[in-house]
């Protein structure tokens, strides 16, 4: 681990899932004293205190529940690199139920230790991994259908893209296809903070959740409109998650897939014109 690491747990004292975040933070520090702890209470009243640390270190953000206090504290601050830990997800991964106890049980502490050790392992692996060079994709010139509601502008590509009713798109390129989210979905989530991309080689079934992303407002997923095998990921999103907001149909693409059954799966998808009408109706229902 060459880069500096800091930990921002939510520390929620009134929930067992909150206690476990504190315990993970302490465990990490116990194992590696160079890791810096960030107190969420201090950060909430004094953004400046940890500003430099947050900017120059990889921040491990640990949230106990869906309120996601730790994540929300990062919203205004500038940060470079973040690793997300979400306790409900961890409970499922380790098939462990925390229950509702005032203090963390012995089992709960062991659970925290397992997570802390795994985090350190992952950091090590990530540091060793050779990053694939980021290749810009060329989208040429795309024609869009456009509509504005209040201050929000929505676009939908006219041709070349297919859409699902879960507001995700697929753009076929021979045997492969690029996948992404539509303006409707990025708008719904507002400023996206983290994007969790799958590993290359992962198999995907139609309508599987394949990319998870998170904003202050919501936890969302790209539900894959097609099945196939992940052949490339848009590594740029790790450093610039806001590409999903600003350029969802082009440089904000998420993954590339080797298609397995596109001709049949296409039947359940919409073309640009149909999706544009579908999207407008949906927005109008929500206004």
């Amino acid at each position, binding site marked *: 681990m060459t880069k500096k690491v800091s930990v921002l747990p939510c520390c929620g004292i009134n929930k067992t899932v909150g206690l476990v975040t504190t315990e993970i933070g302490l465990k990490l520090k116990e194992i590696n004293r160079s890791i810096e702890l960030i107190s969420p209470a201090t950060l909430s009243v004094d953004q400046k205190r940890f500003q430099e640390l947050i900017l120059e270190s990889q921040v491990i953000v640990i949230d106990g529940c*869906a309120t996601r206090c730790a994540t929300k504290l990062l919203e205004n601050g500038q940060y470079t690199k973040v690793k997300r830990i979400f306790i409900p997800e961890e409970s499922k991964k380790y098939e462990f*139920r925390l229950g509702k106890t005032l203090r963390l049980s012995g089992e709960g502490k062991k659970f925290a230790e397992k997570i802390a050790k795994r985090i350190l392992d992952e950091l090590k692996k990530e540091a060793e991994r050779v990053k694939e060079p980021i290749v810009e994709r060329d989208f040429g010139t795309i024609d869009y259908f456009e509509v504005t509601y209040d201050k929000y502008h929505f676009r939908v590509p006219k041709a070349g893209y297919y859409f699902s009713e879960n507001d995700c798109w697929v753009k076929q390129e021979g045997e492969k296809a690029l996948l992404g989210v539509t303006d409707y979905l990025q708008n719904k989530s507002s400023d996206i903070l983290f994007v969790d991309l799958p590993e290359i080689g992962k198999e995907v079934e139609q309508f599987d959740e394949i990319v998870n992303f998170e904003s202050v407002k*919501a*936890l969302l*997923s790209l539900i894959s409109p097609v099945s196939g095998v992940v052949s490339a990921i848009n590594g740029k999103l790790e450093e610039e998650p806001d590409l999903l907001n600003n350029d969802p149909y082009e440089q904000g693409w998420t993954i590339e897939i080797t298609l397995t059954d596109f001709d049949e799966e296409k039947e359940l998808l919409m073309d640009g014109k149909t999706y544009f009408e579908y999207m407008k109706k949906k927005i109008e229902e929500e206004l």
Partner: protein
Amino acid sequence: MAEKYDSTTATFMGVPRKEIPWWPTIDYAKCNFCMDCDKFCPHKVFEKHEDKEKKLVVANPYNCVVFCRACMKLCEPDALIFPEKKEITALIKNIRNKSENND
């Protein structure tokens, strides 16, 4: 939100929403009534009944977005159960084929 959404007339992939059995089921043996799922879901699928034994119920199952499982991800005790996605996809295709043949 979703005030004008009417699940009785809504369709999903061309199939009446009412014919697609997709929504979460609460496993009451596991649920601790933290209500995070209800707080999170913008579609009023859940309803709180604070004075009853089952403090939370799935009140509007057809408001649930087909293939969404967002609430499951944030439920710490893993108390929300969804149908098999494959079966639902097959069902949707079946209904579509039938109605095409009738046209």
